[in-house]
């Protein structure tokens, strides 16, 4: 009896103007077509396939590594935004703010969550790539999505790299010192790279320590406050913005290229 009443309440709600203005398709989905339409008409659901073959979601086949990567990305986004309420990207405060986050701020585990989540995401993205390779899922018509995936892997590594500097401890400073020195060897655009001396007029060299790719990356000739600020902005705004665009394309193409792990 009460079950009947609840059902009618839901139906009543589904007939209201508020419900119908939010969920197109008219009422509670009752058949396949209505269910499909409610997925297609939702901006969040439409990235996902309307229906999945049963065999496609076998854990032993997919390892769920792509889904886990996205799940960890969401955790990192939320915990990262929370950390931004306490962390100040300056030489004076960066390190002590991390200590403060770990030891004084309530639920300081948020910082550990972010750190370990970052490690986990790098691992799951690599394993996802390994799985896609082993199951041959990079073959046409999925070759474009493989390329998008390689860009996503690169962006994941760059996010990991830029986040590594932010605690501003000895490990971070020297890791980024070593890492950014690689940019010196960029062809043409690095001051010590091949072809850098070609971009010169007479004695005036345009690619120097004060104008090369490494300079643009760390905002100076030496590792310092400018590097910390640049990496902070890249880590919190620039790279997440770019990776979200590529993720949207990636998920959408999974559906368009024949669905998840289905022979095509």
């Amino acid at each position, binding site marked *: 009896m009460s079950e009947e009443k609840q059902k009618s309440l839901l139906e009543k709600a589904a007939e209201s103007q508020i419900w119908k203005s939010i969920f197109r398709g008219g009422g509670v989905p009752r058949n396949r077509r209505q269910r499909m339409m409610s997925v297609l008409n939702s901006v969040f659901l439409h990235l996902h396939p309307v229906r999945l073959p049963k065999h496609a979601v076998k854990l032993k086949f997919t390892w769920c590594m792509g889904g886990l990567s996205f799940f960890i990305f969401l955790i990192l986004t939320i915990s990262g935004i929370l950390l931004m309420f306490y962390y100040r990207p300056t030489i004076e405060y960066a390190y002590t703010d991390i200590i403060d986050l770990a030891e004084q701020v309530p639920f300081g585990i948020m910082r550990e969550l972010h750190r370990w989540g970052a490690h986990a995401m790098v691992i799951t993205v690599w394993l996802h790539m390994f799985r896609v390779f082993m199951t041959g899922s990079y073959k046409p018509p999925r070759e474009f999505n493989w390329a998008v995936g390689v860009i996503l892997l690169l962006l994941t590594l760059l996010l990991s790299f830029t986040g590594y500097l932010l605690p501003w401890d000895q490990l971070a400073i*020297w890791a980024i*010192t*070593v890492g950014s*020195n690689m940019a010196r060897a960029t062809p043409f655009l690095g001051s010590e790279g091949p072809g850098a001396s070609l971009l010169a007029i007479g004695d005036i060299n345009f690619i120097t320590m*004060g*104008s090369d790719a490494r*300079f*643009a990356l760390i*905002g*100076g*000739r*030496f590792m*310092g*406050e*400018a590097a910390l600020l640049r990496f902070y902005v890249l880590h919190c705004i620039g790279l997440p913005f770019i990776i979200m665009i590529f993720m949207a394309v990636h998920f959408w193409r999974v559906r368009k290229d024949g669905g998840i792990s289905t022979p095509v």
Partner: protein
Amino acid sequence: MPDGKSTVSKPPVPKSPAALGKTTKDSEDINRRSFFSWLSFGWIGFVAATGGFFTMMLRFFFPNVLFEPVQTFLAGYPDDYIIGEVDTKWKDKYGVWIIRNDQGIYALSTVCTHLGCTPNWLASAKKFKCPCHGSGFKSTGINFEGPAPRPLERYRIVLADDGQIIVDKTKKFQQEKGQWEDPEALLKV
């Protein structure tokens, strides 16, 4: 028509329902051809403006003023340095070791030539040892162990008028290029 002058030769105006209602003067002002030439001007302007903005964005990342430590400093008098010893007092502030030997005084960079870490001077072993990957350098700066591919760099070192030592980090001398023979790479006292 490349010059876009519609008055020289008028192309026939298509008789669309909209054009029929218009006066002839309107169709002379903007016809199909001149519309496309104006359109291409518009596109060129748009592309130029967009390209200009991206150039500005690129230039924005190269500041004119750097808030970095000074690159030239006074390092005291030659007599402050003992023959045969590595002086580490400028290491933290300026990233320079000053070493005096029988020939003179030279300023060594504290940047490891492998990947840019800072080695430590081990006085008992008489060598610079990099903590990152184990590169070793003699007190002259010559690499002898570990992955470092070349000797440490030396900086320009000269005497000021008052007899003090000036170390200028903007000019580097590399041994493998034969630059240590430069008179400004070694201060003879």
